[in-house]
């Protein structure tokens, strides 16, 4: 059951897989996210039901008791990159501050974090992470299992955005 900590952590990780081919400028798309380089806004969405756990009972509890994925199927992140100019990006990563909100379980939380952003050929790669707690999103964890579930959840950002 100690695995639960890691599994919940893993489950909240958004994965990389951008593969749209590049044509026009302006919008960059990953499997889970869109970046608009004109307004510097970024939006990301993950379907919570898609999170896979090693243990099926954990997955069931995660979906039914904690995250309630029938009622709240989506996890979203909307934000704005501050002081960002996509034309100045290079292959060496630069730290870009981001202001945004993470939406989950019907609640929203303001997030301020820094992402490491670099350009590789036509793609923009963003990496980073921040921590949130289940209480931030009104997710109640029964006393009995409190020690088995992570107090803080690391949300990893790993976008490979390709121009579209």
């Amino acid at each position: 059951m100690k695995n639960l900590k890691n599994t919940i952590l893993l489950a909240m990780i958004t994965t990389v897989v951008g593969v749209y081919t590049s044509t026009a400028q302006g919008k960059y798309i990953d499997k889970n996210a869109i970046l608009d380089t004109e307004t510097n806004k970024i939006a990301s969405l993950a379907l919570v039901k898609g999170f896979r756990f090693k243990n099926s009972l954990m997955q069931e509890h995660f979906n039914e008791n904690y995250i309630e994925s029938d009622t709240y199927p989506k996890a979203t992140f909307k934000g704005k990159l501050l002081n960002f100019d996509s034309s100045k990006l290079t292959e060496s990563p630069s730290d870009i501050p981001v202001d945004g909100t993470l939406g989950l379980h019907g609640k929203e939380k303001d997030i301020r974090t820094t992402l490491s952003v670099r350009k590789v050929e036509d793609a923009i790669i963003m990496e980073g992470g921040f921590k949130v707690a289940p209480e931030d999103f009104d997710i109640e964890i029964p006393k009995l299992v409190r020690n088995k579930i992570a107090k803080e959840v690391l949300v990893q950002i790993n976008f490979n955005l390709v121009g579209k």
Partner: protein
Amino acid sequence: MKMQKYLTIAFVALIIITFASFFMYSYMYKPHRNVVEEQTVAVLSAIELQNRFADANGSLESFADKIIEVNGFISNVEQQRTIIVDDKVQIDFDGSSEIEATLIKGNMIRVKGRCVGYDDLLEIVKIDQAILIYNY
């Protein structure tokens, strides 16, 4: 005589414990759903499926978490066992099947998989744990 009584109690207790732990174990480590064996709820085209979700603005999640079959033409082949069908449905194949090389853009395919839901950011329906039914 007393000894025998104790032995009987110990024996019964042992049987109860064995059964209890067996049920506990099968409850805690029950297997994941098996897409191959589960009955398909609906068969429809990728375009139809996307319309079903898009029309209701995502509120009609009638197929979410259900096993469905979808057919259409591959419009994009992505990394990590993922394809897009008719620009409307994104399909993730199960890690265990060896099919990557056979998925070619333009092929007509039919898959069975679990419908995850509707991504209203990219306007696509997502399916995971897919298995290939035909591909040509």
